[in-house]
């Protein structure tokens, strides 16, 4: 890949930063995370309709704006830096990619609505054990009239309460398949979960004779979900890089100004070395995420290995950055009032979501065919 500074990247980054400076301050984030929908409808409209970030990486014939996953990753990184609560990950990365990758032309209108930001989507995949695996779903589909009927429950559905459109992975006579549930479907119950990370909402969805359309052909889900999970891993890693950078900035700023024993605490090696270790892990993470996001559009064969690599590394890197940020701030870092707790909770949750570091290292071992 080309490591020179990319003008497209910088223009995407600066427009998102401009939005966040106006509408994504810490005060905004706290207000939005405590609001009922968990995101700001005006802010979402500004990001989607005006800045067009929901259309990034969507093919133009489906209402997209050109660019690729590399640019989408920049948006996610910036949103992760600010912890800005938005359905971009759940809607654009999970739901829209699942539909686009199904190869089903009958969902073009839904993809266009997601790309426009008009519609918010979610992907119901995980059951209560928290395995993000299409062969372990508990939702069952049975033919009913022209379509299908769903029974069962999905948990940890990102943006599941706010979504207008639900993409569901369900078992159809032993074959994991993809379904689409319309916004006003009967027999769909959504129960918001009490999330540790208030900046990213989740819900439990219960399907009780809920009508659904089949997407693609029976048995499409394993292939589609595998590639969506790789994208999810890279997307979360991009957010993790942004969040960790903010944690390091907060820690370094504090270490430069906080005086104890007559010296700034940043002059003590114990503090310096913590900051250096965070930068060491972050610097490597940034390059790897950029490469992984680039490979989505340019070297698809390399995506599975890079996705697991960056998700495992960035998860641990972000947790380290957030933990050290709190430690360097001392008691203040432990308070509700200070921003560090928000970052730690995002680091904690995004490390466990869509595969823990251990899970991804095992996946990497498989993908490298170790011992095969």
């Amino acid at each position: 890949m080309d490591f020179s500074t990319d003008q497209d990247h910088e223009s995407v980054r600066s427009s998102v930063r401009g939005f966040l400076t106006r509408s994504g301050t810490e005060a905004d984030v706290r207000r939005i995370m405590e609001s009922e929908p968990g995101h700001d409808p005006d802010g979402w409209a500004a990001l989607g309709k005006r800045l067009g970030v929901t259309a990034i990486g969507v093919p133009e014939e489906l209402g997209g704006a050109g660019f690729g996953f590399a640019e989408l990753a920049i948006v996610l990184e910036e949103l992760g830096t600010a912890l800005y609560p938005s359905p971009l990950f759940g809607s654009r990365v999970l739901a829209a990619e699942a539909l686009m990758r199904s190869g089903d032309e009958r969902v073009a209108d839904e993809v266009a609505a997601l790309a426009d930001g008009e519609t918010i989507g979610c992907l119901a995949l995980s059951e209560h054990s928290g395995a993000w695996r299409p062969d372990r779903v508990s939702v069952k589909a049975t033919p009913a009239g022209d379509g299908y009927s769903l029974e069962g429950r999905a948990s940890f559905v990102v943006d599941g309460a706010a979504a207008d459109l639900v993409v569901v992975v369900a078992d159809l006579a032993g074959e994991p398949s993809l379904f689409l549930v319309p916004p006003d479907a009967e027999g769909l119950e959504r129960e918001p979960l009490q999330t540790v990370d208030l900046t990213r909402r989740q819900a439990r969805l219960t399907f009780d004779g809920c009508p659904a359309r089949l997407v693609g052909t029976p048995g499409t889900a394993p292939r589609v979900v595998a590639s969506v999970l790789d994208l999810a891993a890279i997307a979360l890693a991009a957010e993790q890089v942004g969040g960790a950078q903010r944690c390091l900035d907060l820690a370094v700023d504090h270490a430069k100004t906080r005086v104890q024993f007559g010296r700034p605490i940043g002059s003590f090696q114990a503090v310096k070395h913590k900051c250096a270790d965070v930068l060491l892990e972050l610097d490597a993470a940034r390059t790897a995420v950029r490469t992984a996001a680039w490979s989505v559009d340019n070297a698809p064969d390399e995506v599975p290995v890079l996705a697991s690599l960056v998700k495992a590394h960035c998860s641990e890197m972000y947790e380290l950055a957030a933990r050290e940020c709190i430690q360097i701030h001392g008691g203040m870092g432990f308070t509700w009032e200070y921003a560090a707790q928000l970052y730690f909770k995002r680091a904690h949750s995004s490390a466990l979501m869509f595969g823990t570091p251990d899970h991804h290292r095992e996946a990497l071992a498989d993908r490298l065919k170790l011992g095969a």
Partner: protein
Amino acid sequence: MTTQTRGDSFRDEVREFLREHLPAGWQGSGGLDPGAYPGFREHWRALLVEHRLIAPAWPREYGGGGHTAVESAIVAEEFARVGVPRGGANDPFGIQMIGNTLLALGTEEQRRRFLPGILDGTYVFCQGFSEPGHGSDLSNITTRARREGGEWVIDGQKIWTSNALTANWIFVLCRTGDQDTSRYQGLTLLLVPLDQPGVERRPIRMINGGDEFCETFFTGARTGAGLEVGGVGGGWQAATRLLTFERGETTATLPVRFRAELDRLRTLIELRGAFADPLVRRDFAWCWSRVELMRLNGQRNLARWAQGESIGAESSLEKLWWSELHGKITGLACRVLGAEATTYSGQDPVSYFLCDEPGAPADSVSSWVKVHLSTLGETIAAGTSEIQRNIVAERLLGLPR
């Protein structure tokens, strides 16, 4: 990656040279018998001198290849890929360190005298910086040099002099001014011949059993006036400059060497059937990831370097990364070997530091154990991990001293 686009035709030339001159069936230097390695290395070095590949980026008037720094990194990378040395054991000191420093700061007279001689083997250098009392804190060194007529007279002691026994000259950081008033200004970098009564070298036996380091004693040792590099009192600047040349090229070569070592580790684990152990699988995947992260970051750094950005304190990040990683990789090999790794057996490593050479047998216990022991020195030599973290914190993050 820029070194791939801009240097494509040059890279092909280097590959063609390797194809033409490497012995048939070449597997990497690690495939040689360790006893045969020094002889091969001497023969190979002479070939590189003849083809002007020994110092690719030096001007041709001094025997160099007249190539760009990027092209020089390509030579290093391609040589690492096939596991063949870039030169002799002392060339990192003669060419990369003092040679490059002479090109940057030396007088024309010094360049004409030393540069061609370093390449043709007349001058074989080693490095005299660290002292028993001053390793990390280099600015406080106490080895003194005073003028006596047309000569410098040197008294003091240096330590950790790598490859001192195969050298005939040494560059020595000496105190020539007043220590109290000018810690930094009072230093001078001197070129000193080793074969004289005032210099004594005593090998130090190391944790890995090897003796590639010496203590070097100076008792009224002499060298000529005019052999100070960077001028009298300019030693600190010259030494700082010199240490930046120590790193650069490793950005291109280390990922290649580490990957070759990982491939050997993978083969070892497969031979022992140890991938059935989920912890071994996970730890290997972790090591593989760290090497891949090093490779990707290295490509980024080389691209920046090729665009003319200088790599300064970032080299501290690189050094921290690989040196903290290396012991984990060799430690995993020892865990897989189990009780076998409590004894020495099989072939010794051809090279102890920065991995054994590519082509080394994957299941040689002695190679893994001796390289594992050597990794303990890698987080100490050329700036300890603690010093590197200070540099990162102060220069990259702006934390106060």
